[in-house]
């Protein structure tokens, strides 16, 4: 049976990991398989792990202010490595107008402080429902 697989990543030097740990536990409790890779990941590491794990989603948590470089870079690498179907989304401290700008570039929804975990679970499920599985042979 197909499971929703989500890679949760903390890119850059950002050490705020409470939010992502809350989300990791919530997604597990919602029946998803969550791969957590730890702190201080580069965009290259995030994309490599996502490909090897064949995840449907990458959720990045950024509270350091580096979102305008990290999100586009991961998006670019995903396309370059032939993994453009992976859905990139995230959360943290991201001003509204910059969220809009990132979403225009192709990043999924970005969630700020105070978001409930139900909102995030609902979002993931609704995106997952639209994905189709390709046959292998």
């Amino acid at each position, binding site marked *: 049976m197909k499971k929703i697989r989500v890679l949760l990543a903390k890119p850059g030097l950002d050490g705020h990991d409470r939010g992502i740990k809350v989300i990791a536990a919530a997604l597990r409790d919602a*029946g998803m*398989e969550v791969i*957590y890779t730890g702190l201080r990941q580069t965009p290259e590491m995030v994309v490599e792990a996502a490909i090897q794990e064949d995840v449907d989603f990458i959720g990045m948590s950024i509270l350091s202010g580096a979102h305008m470089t990290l999100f586009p870079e991961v998006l670019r690498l995903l396309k370059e490595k032939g993994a453009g179907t992976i859905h990139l989304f995230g959360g943290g401290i991201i001003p509204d107008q910059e969220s809009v700008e990132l979403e225009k570039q192709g990043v999924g929804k970005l969630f700020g402080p105070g978001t409930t975990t139900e909102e995030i679970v609902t979002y993931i499920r609704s995106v997952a429902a639209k994905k189709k599985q*390709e*046959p292998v042979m």
Partner: protein
Amino acid sequence: MTTLDRFLTGDRVALAKVISFVEDRSDGYDRVLSRIFSGGKTTYRVGLTGPPGAGKSSLVNRLAVLLADQGLRVGIIAVDPSSPFSGGALLGDRVRMQALYGRPEIFVRSMATRGSSGGLAAATKDVCVVLEGFGFDIILVETVGVGQIELDVASVCDTVVVVFVPESGDAIQAMKSGLMEIANVFCLNKSDRPGAERIKAELESILDVHRQVRMVAKDSPPPWETPVIPTVAIRDTGIAHLWEAVSQHRRYRSQADPAGFRKARARSDLVLSLTELTHERLERTLFESDQLNLAVEQIVSGRADPYTIAHQLFDSWRRS
């Protein structure tokens, strides 16, 4: 070009997709496996098992680098438990495998147990077959953190490394059954911690008793002497010794009974596949049938007992 075609040309994105296809038991997964199956003659599978937090992932991290530096291609399967309540899982072994990025010889895959209770997922053995078909030289399999009874790793892997730590004193007493019997190499990790010397001596004396018992039995080949290798994974100490012990066991197995050791695994793989196939067929046909519902009625109303009915149902299912 299909995903399988791309897999066969060495594409890692395709490798990851094929693993999912097999792991998910998607329709036709066994046909994909039969296309890929290589017999695994050139691949060696090493299992790492032991209590939670003993340092299995940290050791895998070091071993993989050591092997890749020798030019070997290393596939890694890291298993963590699924929640029996939600079916979800938190797969965190990668946190301790930070040295494995940016290395084309290394591939890491996390797996959830998805309902299996033997320390691995039911599909782990099949993912090994996929990695073998892709051409890896060594497969490292990390089990969930185990107690004494999660022993599936012994039927999936060629050499089993049991990892324990200086704090495992009581656990060693308990380990005398189960884990003790499947260990081909003991790794005493965190030997930077106090008590390491004492626990090593304790374990060696237990192993000595085991050995004497086996000597009395007069087996034809000389029995393998399970070594105890101290390591400090966080400082990269003892890793080469650990690998040397694994390699010695590999040589021992191939010399002591070269045909037998392939046969044993082929048999256990086949039995597991048959069991899964039977179960799956039963689930799809009999478990969903009116016959079964009828039988339940009969049991509840006291007209039949479940043991007789089970035989009757099974026999008629087999004939159909």
